[in-house]
């Protein structure tokens, strides 16, 4: 049986994706940060982000409609959390 991943682990791993894939400084990775306006990602970067998150968490995101509504880093954490909860 898979062990459930904690919220803190999800936050840490998501931040790691942003640091590794986009080289964004750790200090900037605050939950309320808008990933487009504050962190500077664009639609093509979102594709890269999805690929990186899929690899990191072993989940399928690509065709998930909820991706469209993601605005802040907190939205990303919540989205991953909901995906992980759906697994269990």
């Amino acid at each position, binding site marked *: 049986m898979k062990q459930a991943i904690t919220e803190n682990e999800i936050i840490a791993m998501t931040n790691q994706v942003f640091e590794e*894939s*986009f*080289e964004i400084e750790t200090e900037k990775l605050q939950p309320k940060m808008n990933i*487009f*306006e504050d962190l*500077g*990602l*664009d*639609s*093509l*970067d979102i594709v*890269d982000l999805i690929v990186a998150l899929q690899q990191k968490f072993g989940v399928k995101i690509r065709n998930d409609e909820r991706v469209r509504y993601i605005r802040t880093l907190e939205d990303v954490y919540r989205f991953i959390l909901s995906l992980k909860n759906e697994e269990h």
Partner: protein
Amino acid sequence: MKNIKSLKLISFNISFYFVFFLYSAIAIPVLTLLVAYFSLFMSHRNTMKWFRRAISWYGMLVIKVFPFPLIRIYYKDYEKNPGPGPYIFVCNHRSATDPFLMACLPYECIQVVNIWPFRLPVLGIYARWAGYLSINEMPFKQFSKQAVKLLKQGASIIVFPEGTRSGGKSMGQFHGSIFRVALEAKCPIVPVCISGNENIPPRGSFLLRPGKIKIHKLPAIKWEEFKALKPFKLKNMVRNIISKEVAVMDRKE
């Protein structure tokens, strides 16, 4: 005193737009006929080259001669040994005059534009004929394919990666499409910084105000210098270079 100033501003604008429309009505057909005539003796590639250069000559008069002396343009090239290109020129975007200011660049260029410039009467048609790329009307793969093809042909590309005018001294985040093209095409990137035209004209207006517009063309960043960077990092690196230079230019205003 205020009334005299307003009167001066209005008369300047009336005279500018009158000359602009008159010149456009004459120059556009003349340049078109010239290019069409020479196309009989030239390859399609050379015709396009001269057509794009003709657009620059047309723009040069519009930005440098007609608004003079109330609006002055100062262009400075910081490249010690400018090459023949092609280049990807990356510019900050404050005003609707920015695309016209690009006539200063002495290269055969096409611009990456939004949908609205294509809707301009006459100029929009010429933009399409010249092969300008309407980034919002095509998926990234198609945009990338066309951009790489143009660069391989020797045409340079001008892009305003903020996507829209800031209307002030701030600078928006950059879109990354063109930086992915630069990586793929192994094309050098040239940062171009524009300052002083925030109100020439102000956003949502056609009223030109007197002022000094400075354009600084910075040294090219060669592909070898950025090939190891990811597109996200590259776009932010170029944005920082432009942002720093523009801040200095604004302070010297």
